[in-house]
């Protein structure tokens, strides 16, 4: 294990390093720096760059020891608010847990949309299912716990909250997050025939906007 200032490098087998950072913000900054160096051609060969909540996994590395020695000397700038692609996602705030979340936030249910759309979100990492992105950006006072009992089926397009994260389910799966809204057209979140397949990759900025009433006015 190599420690340098705020960065801990942990071995993960013969060809990977798990770089651990103190918080989500420095993790995002380190991840952005890895991508910058790869784009500039100054990163040694790395097959997979996988951010987590407070880690970045560098996998498929021919010489992990050399990379570990090199990256402890990196100067890593903070991520500027306007770094990264911006994606706008239109959402109807109509989820079954809207009232519970409103109560936790101490606001009326119809105010949840304004509170949630007011914050700038960013993809911290992906996982759970292809196209499922963990978005950070909500301040601590808006963090809510998972539901005590997970749902056996969360519909595709559900906008959900858990802990520090917001997410939109790209497809129907079981899930324990609090559902506050619906993305009417979730098909764009994940399309393996498209390049890139995921709408939301780590580092992407997300702005939620309130969708118009459902087309046709039904429901």
């Amino acid at each position: 294990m190599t420690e340098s200032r705020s960065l801990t490098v942990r071995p993960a087998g013969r060809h990977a390093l798990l770089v651990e950072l103190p918080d989500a913000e420095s993790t995002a900054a380190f991840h952005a720096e890895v991508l910058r160096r790869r784009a500039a051609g100054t990163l040694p060969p790395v097959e997979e760059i996988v951010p987590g909540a407070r880690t970045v996994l560098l996998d498929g590395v021919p010489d992990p020891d050399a990379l570990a020695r090199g990256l402890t000397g990196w100067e890593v700038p903070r991520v500027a608010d306007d770094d990264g692609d911006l994606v706008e996602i239109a959402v109807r705030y109509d989820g079954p847990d809207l009232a519970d979340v409103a109560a936790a936030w101490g606001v009326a249910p119809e105010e949840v949309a304004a509170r949630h759309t007011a914050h700038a979100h960013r993809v911290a990492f992906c996982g759970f299912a292809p196209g499922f992105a963990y978005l950070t950006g909500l301040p601590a006072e808006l963090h809510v716990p998972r539901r005590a009992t997970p749902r056996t089926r969360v519909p595709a397009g559900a906008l959900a909250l858990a802990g520090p994260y917001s997410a939109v389910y790209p497809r129907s799966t079981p899930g324990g997050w609090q559902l506050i809204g619906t993305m009417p057209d979730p098909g764009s979140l994940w399309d393996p025939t498209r390049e890139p397949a995921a709408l939301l990759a780590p580092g992407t900025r997300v702005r939620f906007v309130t969708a118009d009433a459902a087309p046709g006015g039904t429901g």
Partner: protein
Amino acid sequence: MTARLTTVRSGALTTVQDSGRRGHAHLGVPRSGALDAPAMRLANRLLGNDPDAAVLETTLTGCALRPDRAISAVVGGAHCPVTVDGRPAAWGAPVRVPAGAVLNVGTATAGVRSYVAVAGGIATEPVLGSRSTDLLSGLGPEPLRDGDVVPVGLPRSVTPSVAAPWPGPPAELVLPVRLGPRADWFAPAALRTLTSATYRVSPHSNRIGLRTEGPPLERASTGELASEGVVLGAVQVPPDGRPVVFLHDHPTTGGYPVVAVVAEPSLAAAAQAAVGTPVRFTLG
């Protein structure tokens, strides 16, 4: 014209596999691909295919296929009886299957996963650069069902290379590991247990992970681990304490500590270790 294979008997679980998907782990896409990659490559080489051409991976009970045109095929990996229209045929070597005849890949007599390579390769549509069925995230073709038709590519006119012998399945699965990245989440006694106890392959093993039965590993810290990236071969320890070795369809991020990582070349043997096989983890 290229051949098409009709699935006469799909078996317990038969999937299309190649060398898998690389470079998409950050989007939650596992590598996937043949669990016993050396067996896939050897079967392909015996036919003059690209070593990473797509093949069929069976599970314990084999499968049966009927080509609409004559094909050459190799059945390798797990040992099993092979027949063509009921007549015994070679295992581990090229077999000619006439148009309309049935190639039967029997129940494994040793090992778990047999590989059926066909000259020209399995030619289903690639997804994200691979034809592999990824059972975790549902990418690639669905597992075969009876009656499914599988396209075959155009055979190459090259002389097959001479093959190395097929390894047998392990009587005991010895998995060399390096500790980390989260070995410090476990008590020192747990690390001794990991590298000295004998575990057994659990019946709950699948393409996502080789689950084990044996002494639980006690954690030193009771905290909750934030989700982090996980490599192929990671030995993850869920709350029950029994190590799980992540195989090719493993989730790309996880929230349970990874105590050690198995060297990738040893995972082929893990893929062929039947339920109940003794498992030992060794440092190295």
